[in-house]
């Protein structure tokens, strides 16, 4: 670089597709490296508002002494940077993403169009109900649909994700017990539960009691009975559970928990398996959260936004968070649809009305599919998972090899024991094949777990290719002549990443680089 000769070479080049795996495999510079003082992309309306000197606007003690350093780029370099970053990112739109427990199904583009409607995206959340009747109607329609799907009586749409739904549910549990003059101390969760469950229990002010799974992969009913007492506020379950197995004893479990005055919480992360087949309400659950970003095809956004509405049985409706969109019951000349906070509400759980545009997307998906379509979604998701289970059986252990629901957990234990190849190696090797990896090492109760959730939107051909790839990898693991699996992936934008070093020499921002 002859930076001095040009005077321009202070930063990194922005116009070079240096990070596009399409062309070369260099890293993409950061925004900060691309920044060049004096460049800009922004532009504001011409308003005619006279500018007032800053010192008349901000009292001196509160005034900034120097501007926040934000990268300075032309729109061209801004666009280049983020377009290139997007080429370093796998996504559902690029290929199958069989990440267990996450339901990475295809997200229909019509829902993008819905979320972009100016009449929805441009509404202010603090506007009085009379001015946003469309939004209230939408929320009510979604709430009703979710209640029908789960067999519940009412719902809050505020929680912004599944975990927020869990905590909301636990607060509802607490409020209900308190309303009955009871203070209970524990919540039971199975050892196969997702990490958010115990974390939420703690935040809900409860102590976690873990029940083990039995040899069939389900809650050990005897062990459950042993821990049930009057201190138990409730139990959190997902059904099918995180092994992809239906808890067949659910009626007995519900009976036992209810008998000691506990409530049943349904973690809806796996709802995709049972849409239109069986409803949490009918199984005896009192509280249900849903992950709309999973079951109802709203995209995961690289890690969010999601939406985690909580539906409850009749006796819990008075405790729901508020405000809640409701049909007006008065004959006044106010608007038809109003905000109402339930009488004994636990209060707000979101700054406004939840991730509203995500809610709109989910309703769109529900309406396109309809009751009949949602049922077929579940059937097909379960069919796909079972088909994979059959195809993978030969090369992988299937710890609980009986009909699974929407996902299947296999184990690479044999591969590790016999060839030193871990679940992680299988996952990284699969990346090389053009698929995203399954979830690994979860649920914790399965050794070298590979949790595979194909979802219903992947075709039989794709399943075939996925099964072939996984089986081929198992064969490679056993073969002396193949590249060791630990070397993979080879052609991804970066190869295996040093996670230990990241934690050791923590660099959480570009300014922390030493």
């Amino acid at each position, binding site marked *: 670089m002859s930076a001095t000769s040009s005077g321009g070479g202070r930063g990194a080049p922005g116009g070079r597709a240096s990070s596009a795996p399409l062309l070369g495999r260099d890293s993409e510079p950061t925004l900060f490296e691309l920044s060049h003082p004096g460049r800009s992309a922004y532009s504001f309306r011409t308003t005619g508002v006279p500018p007032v000197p800053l010192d008349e*606007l901000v009292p001196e003690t509160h005034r*900034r002494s120097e501007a926040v350093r934000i990268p300075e780029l032309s729109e061209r370099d801004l666009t280049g940077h983020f377009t290139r970053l997007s080429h*370093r990112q796998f996504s559902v739109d690029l290929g199958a993403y069989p990440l267990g427990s996450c339901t990475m199904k295809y997200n229909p583009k019509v829902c993008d169009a819905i979320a972009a409607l100016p009449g929805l995206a441009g509404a202010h959340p603090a*506007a009085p109900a009379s001015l946003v009747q469309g939004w209230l109607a939408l929320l009510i329609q979604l709430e009703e649909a979710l209640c029908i799907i789960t067999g519940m009586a009412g719902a809050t749409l505020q929680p912004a994700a599944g975990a927020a739904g869990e905590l909301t549910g636990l607060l509802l549990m607490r409020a209900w017990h308190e309303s009955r003059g009871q203070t209970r101390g524990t919540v039971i969760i199975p050892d196969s539960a997702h990490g958010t469950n115990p974390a939420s229990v*703690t935040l809900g002010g409860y102590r976690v009691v873990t029940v083990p799974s039995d040899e069939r992969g389900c809650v050990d009913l005897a062990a459950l009975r042993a821990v049930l007492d009057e201190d138990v506020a409730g139990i959190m379950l997902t059904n099918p559970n995180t092994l992809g197995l239906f808890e067949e004893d659910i009626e007995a479990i519900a009976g036992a928990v209810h008998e000691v005055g506990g409530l049943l919480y349904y973690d809806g992360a796996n709802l995709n398996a049972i849409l239109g087949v069986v409803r949490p309400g009918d199984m005896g659950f009192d509280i249900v959260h849903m992950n709309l970003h999973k079951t109802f095809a709203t995209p995961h956004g690289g890690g969010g936004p999601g939406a985690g509405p909580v539906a409850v049985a009749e006796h819990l409706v008075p405790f729901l968070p508020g405000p809640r969109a409701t049909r007006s019951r008065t004959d006044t000349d106010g608007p038809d649809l109003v905000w109402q906070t339930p009488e004994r509400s636990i209060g707000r759980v979101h700054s406004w009305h939840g991730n509203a545009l995500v809610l709109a997307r989910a309703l769109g998906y529900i309406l*396109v599919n309809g009751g009949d379509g949602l049922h077929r979604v579940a059937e097909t998701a379960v069919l796909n998972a079972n088909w994979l289970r059959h195809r993978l059986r030969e090369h992988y252990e299937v710890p609980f090899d009986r009909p699974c629901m929407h996902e299947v957990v296999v184990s690479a234990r044999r591969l590790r024991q016999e060839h030193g190849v871990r679940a992680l190696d299988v996952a990284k090797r699969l990346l090389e094949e053009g698929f995203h990896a399954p979830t690994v090492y979860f649920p914790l109760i399965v050794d070298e777990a590979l949790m595979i959730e194909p979802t219903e939107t992947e075709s039989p051909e794709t399943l075939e290719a996925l099964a072939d790839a996984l089986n081929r990898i198992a064969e490679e693991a056993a073969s002396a002549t193949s590249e060791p699996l630990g070397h993979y992936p080879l052609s991804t934008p970066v190869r295996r990443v040093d996670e230990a070093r990241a934690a050791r020499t923590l*660099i959480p921002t570009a*300014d922390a680089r030493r």
Partner: protein
Amino acid sequence: MGTYLPHTEEDVASMLSFLGLPSTEALFSAVPESLRLQHGLELDDGVTEPDVLAHFEDLAAANRARSDQMICFAGGGVYDHEVPPVTRALAGRSEFVTSYTPYQPEVAQGVLQALFEYQTLIARLSGLPVANASLYDGGSATVEAVNLGVGASGRSLVWVSQGVHPNWRSMLATYGHGTGHQIRTVPLTDGVTRWPDVDGDGPPGVVVLAYPNYLGCIDDVAAARRLCDETGATLVVAADPVAAGLMRPAGSWGADVVVGEGQVFGMPLAFGGPALGLFTCTEEHLRRLPGRLVGETVDVDGKRAYVTTLRAREQDIRREKATSNVCTNQTLMAVTAAVQLAWLGTQGLAEMGHRCASATHYARAALFSDGRLEPFVSAPVLREFAVRLPVPSDVVVERMANEGFLAGIPLGGDFEGGERGLLVAVTERRTRDEIDAFVAALTKAAR
């Protein structure tokens, strides 16, 4: 309809036969017969995409308070700022939209690097060294900050300024019920927090202040810091990130945690969500940081790479001992904010704040010049302010809607005399003509 399923009837039949099953029903043999739905869901059958889109267009049309048709003077954490087409185009790229949490960093460098850049930007804005990779919204960020503060101080008494957004305070109350925190609201006096003396409940473990606060006033962070120094409490500041472009960073005032609502950086009003919870803290509190954190590292070839780090804090590993339960978050909004901030640049961010403040100044001068209306409080404000009206503010809002304005947010019962208080925000998008018309209409509507 099930439009999104690839499977034909023959596909299903042949897969079932491979499984040795007679029907799709048989897939659900584990579900007790007695529990199964006999007649399907009581939902209408599916309809076509164009029909559904038409339905949503009808719903959208039923919203009058939409920023393309009603001029927006409402704020309260969610503002009508410029969202340029380039931000929408880039943050909307399907690789960002349809991926999930970067569990496999080798194929997720796009999201990871964008988050790393986001963290850097938000840290700079707050004046603190560490930012997480997003929380749900401003309110949940405040809740998480209080949880962190209680953990750090070991005391569960929380003093919260009344200047913190009422909805966020309401969330603190809700969640405090679970964690057992005592949330005590400290009232504003003429727009500024007057901290009381420590009483019988003992010193607070956490002190929460908004900067500027809900009434738009520039509250006294120094006083809050002194209180914390005296009591050993953790100082949480809820800072307006647009004002932060003009004001001393909350970190430089000695905040331990700075939170905020990031909707202002590239997101539409969106009826309040998805928004973006901003969360930054000092290095001291790193191990209690809620949510995801992206760090820089290298790959096996020594090439720069990014990865989520300090994972041991998180729920999936730490489980019931985790400081937070967050999993799915607001990544796409964090990416959006990174794009938007880079679009703004150093100068654009400062100018945006300056334009908002000038427009606010202009609107206030016009509103209060003839003495018919008056400010709700007299403390200095920056880009949002409250008006004291002679009539109930919800009535005024309805009247103003007929004139084409979303006039602001009624203060409501949470503030003394708030039934006649109206919170007004004037962003850089408001033209002089719009402000003039607003002032004229409000003066009339307030009669």
